[in-house]
């Protein structure tokens, strides 16, 4: 009886297979088939299986052919659709096919076939043409990303997470997309600066703001994609990081992004920016986002130094909108980049609070001794050297009005503390003078040097450059800058003779412009800052030398003997958090350390160094 069954099986198996395969094909084309019948016939293959290998007949006589058939079917389907469909349509189709195949497997195939069936389908539909599908010129991943097609992106992720190296491929395209969009922003900003160079600098900071806001927007968008469409997969976070690093380490018209970001923070935290109207949570969020961008730039030390200079200016000229916001930014930076990164800036903030207390005390002191300052409203900000940027302190011959005030403060200060030396930095001071012009009285907001210069005109009407210079004893360049701001700028408080050019020369004569007037009752006369940027970069370069030296010595101290390449590598690794040191500079520093006998070359191997204790 049993033998009979097998004879029958041998006769019908071929035919049965053919029929089922053609039914499957029909179903794939969209026809209705009798699924129960197929299931029943297929159960024959399984039920005849022997104990030892229950699925042998099913596999050799049916499954192999079925899989081959699947392979061929989807190979055809893929080649047809890949050229006809858009990327999104194709993926939709692929997902649909996979769903149907899965359904098919559950319904009438043996359970063991499901994974193989899906494997074949995925391979043909997604793997074989992966590049072609994803990089479709007018509808591929680039376009989906550009147009925020979240649903399609999610689908793509779902499908390709099952494909070998699928996510690597997508994340690589993702990274390339992010960096190319970023680079386009950089180019746009650079073109913008070039075009607007001629226009006045009234809206300085605006360009930075626009650019940084765009970058933040970009980051929001792609971070969103990472988390929502790409399920927070680490490959994509890495791609996002690398994509941003690729363009945030470029320059825009000679300015590094480090500088732009610090300028952005500066205008964000300044009084009078529209930020003051924003809610606390928006401010908090923006701060967090900027810090996240800082993480992408290699020259973090440059950002820190620019920020420190700008913070100093905000604090000293009372331009900071809200000290709590300053603190919040610092704490975010500290959290992200470590204590060392912000220690000086935090010191400055605390220092200023102490200085304010002292100012209050002095005010009370003056209230009790009103004659000490000769009626001038006077305050001094006492700071700790070390936290603050170094300012040139030029001794100059200040007018008597100042002298009284300074003396009063000295008396006050010496009573409070002893053994402390005050170092006066007039260049950072400011002064309000009442200008009695013919038409009306205008309050002038000036720097100390500007004020000292104008006060000379209380007694003389016409003063030559040489006389002013002799009187104030300021360095010539400084003197020229001050006089330029008073006679050649927007507000001409002084009239220059000859007035034909806008260059101050030693033979010029200056006259008080009593006819000056302005619609405002109070004006600030700007004194352009000297090349501050150059100084920041110089300072950072200098600081880097010390930092590299320290890192090299630290490494060598622990390793004693180390090959050149390893030393360079470890040094870069150690400093990575602050900046990306140039290999050539490291080499120079090593040479310098060899010259200073901290290191010597190993006698056995000229490519290795020894630590000299």
């Amino acid at each position, binding site marked *: 009886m049993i033998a009979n069954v097998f004879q029958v099986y041998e006769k019908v198996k071929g035919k049965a297979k053919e029929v089922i395969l053609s039914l499957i094909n029909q179903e794939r084309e969209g026809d209705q088939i009798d699924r129960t019948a197929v299931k029943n016939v297929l159960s024959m293959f399984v039920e005849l299986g022997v104990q030892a290998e229950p699925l042998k007949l099913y596999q050799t006589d049916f499954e192999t052919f079925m899989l081959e058939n699947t392979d061929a079917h989807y190979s055809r389907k893929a080649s047809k659709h890949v050229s006809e469909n858009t990327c999104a349509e194709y993926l939709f189709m692929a997902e649909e096919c996979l769903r149907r195949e899965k359904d098919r497997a559950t319904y009438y195939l043996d359970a063991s076939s499901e994974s193989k069936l899906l494997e074949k389908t995925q391979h043909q539909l997604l793997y074989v043409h992966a590049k072609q599908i994803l990089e479709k010129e007018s509808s591929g991943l680039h376009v989906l990303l550009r147009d925020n097609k979240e649903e399609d992106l999610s689908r793509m992720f779902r499908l390709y997470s099952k494909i070998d190296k699928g996510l690597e491929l997508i994340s690589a395209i993702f990274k390339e997309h992010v960096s190319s969009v970023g680079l386009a922003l950089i180019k746009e900003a650079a073109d913008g600066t070039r075009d607007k160079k001629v226009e006045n600098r009234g809206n300085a900071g605006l360009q930075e703001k626009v650019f940084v806001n765009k970058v933040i927007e970009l980051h929001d968008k792609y971070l969103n994609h990472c988390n929502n469409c790409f399920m927070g997969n680490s490959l994509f976070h890495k791609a996002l990081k690398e994509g941003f690093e690729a363009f945030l380490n470029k320059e825009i018209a000679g300015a590094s992004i480090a500088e732009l970001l610090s300028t952005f923070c500066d205008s964000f935290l300044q009084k009078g920016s529209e930020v003051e109207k924003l809610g606390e949570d928006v401010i908090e969020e923006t701060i967090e986002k900027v810090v996240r961008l800082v993480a992408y730039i290699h020259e973090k030390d440059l950002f820190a130094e620019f920020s420190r200079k700008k913070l100093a200016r905000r604090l000293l000229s009372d331009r900071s909108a809200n000290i709590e916001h300053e603190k919040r930014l610092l704490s975010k930076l500290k959290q992200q980049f470590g204590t060392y990164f912000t220690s000086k800036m935090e010191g400055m903030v605390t220092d200023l609070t102490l200085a304010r207390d002292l100012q209050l005390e002095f005010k009370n002191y003056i209230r009790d001794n009103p004659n000490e300052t000769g009626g001038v409203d006077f305050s001094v900000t006492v700071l700790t050297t070390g936290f603050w940027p170094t300012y040139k302190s030029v001794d100059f011959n200040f007018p008597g009005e100042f002298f009284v005030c300074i003396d009063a403060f000295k008396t006050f200060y010496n009573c409070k503390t002893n053994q402390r030396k005050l170092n006066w930095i007039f260049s950072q001071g400011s002064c309000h003078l009442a200008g009695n012009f013919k038409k009306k009285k205008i309050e002038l907001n000036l720097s100390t040097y500007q004020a000292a210069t104008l006060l000379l005109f209380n007694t003389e009407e016409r003063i030559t450059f040489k006389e002013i210079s002799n009187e104030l004893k300021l360095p010539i360049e400084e003197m020229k800058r001050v006089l330029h701001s008073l006679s050649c700028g927007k507000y001409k408080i002084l009239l220059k003779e000859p007035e034909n050019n806008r260059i101050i020369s030693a033979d010029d004569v200056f006259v008080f412009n009593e006819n000056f007037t302005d619609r405002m009752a109070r004006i600030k006369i700007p004194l352009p800052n000297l090349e501050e940027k150059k100084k920041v970069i110089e300072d950072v370069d200098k600081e880097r030398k010390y930092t590299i030296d320290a890192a090299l010595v630290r490494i060598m101290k622990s390793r004693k003997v180390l090959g*050149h*390449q390893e030393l360079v590598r470890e040094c870069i690794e150690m400093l990575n958090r602050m900046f990306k040191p140039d290999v*050539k500079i490291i*080499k*120079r520093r*090593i*040479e310098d350390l*060899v*010259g200073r006998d901290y290191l010597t*070359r190993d*006698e*056995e191997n*000229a*490519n*290795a*160094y020894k630590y000299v204790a």
Partner: protein
Amino acid sequence: MDSSDNNTSIFEIYSRYCGIRSVKHDAKEELAQLLKLLELRRKASSIVDDLNTLMPYLDLTVDSCRFARFYDFVFFMCRKNGQKNITVTKAIDAWKLVLKGRFRLLNEWCGFVEKHQRHNIPEDTWQQLLAFSRCVHEDLEGYDPKGAWPVLIDEFVDHMYRITSSNSSSTRIRGCNCGDSEAEPCRSDDS
């Protein structure tokens, strides 16, 4: 040969130098003394004179270690007032004399240093140049950009690459003929 009897002869100084260097210990004092003796000689004879006197009597072609010792001595001679580094002019004069026939790119090197180096030459650069001259051929083969060469040598190589690529077809670098048999790095303890 020496114009005054107070002067220690250059032979004497050299042999004392070799004596000090062959003992492996820090001999700053002794070297400083020797440097003073050398400075006394400068009143009567120049470094170049001294080298010209000394060189024919030293059998420098025999082994590379002996030459390396002598090469170090030349740097030592050029130091002024106990300074660690020597001036570019002195270094170039000395190189032209002692590396003649030993370094295929000598002329190019001296020309490059004269034109591009503004700082003094430190001892390490001096010593590494000898190693460089021994292991690098005139086509710069044998130079490893990842190696620990002093920056000046790296820059020289870059400079040479630029020159050769700009007139690659016509002129080849003309080096001087020399038997460079001593590619072995040497250690300083066998004198």
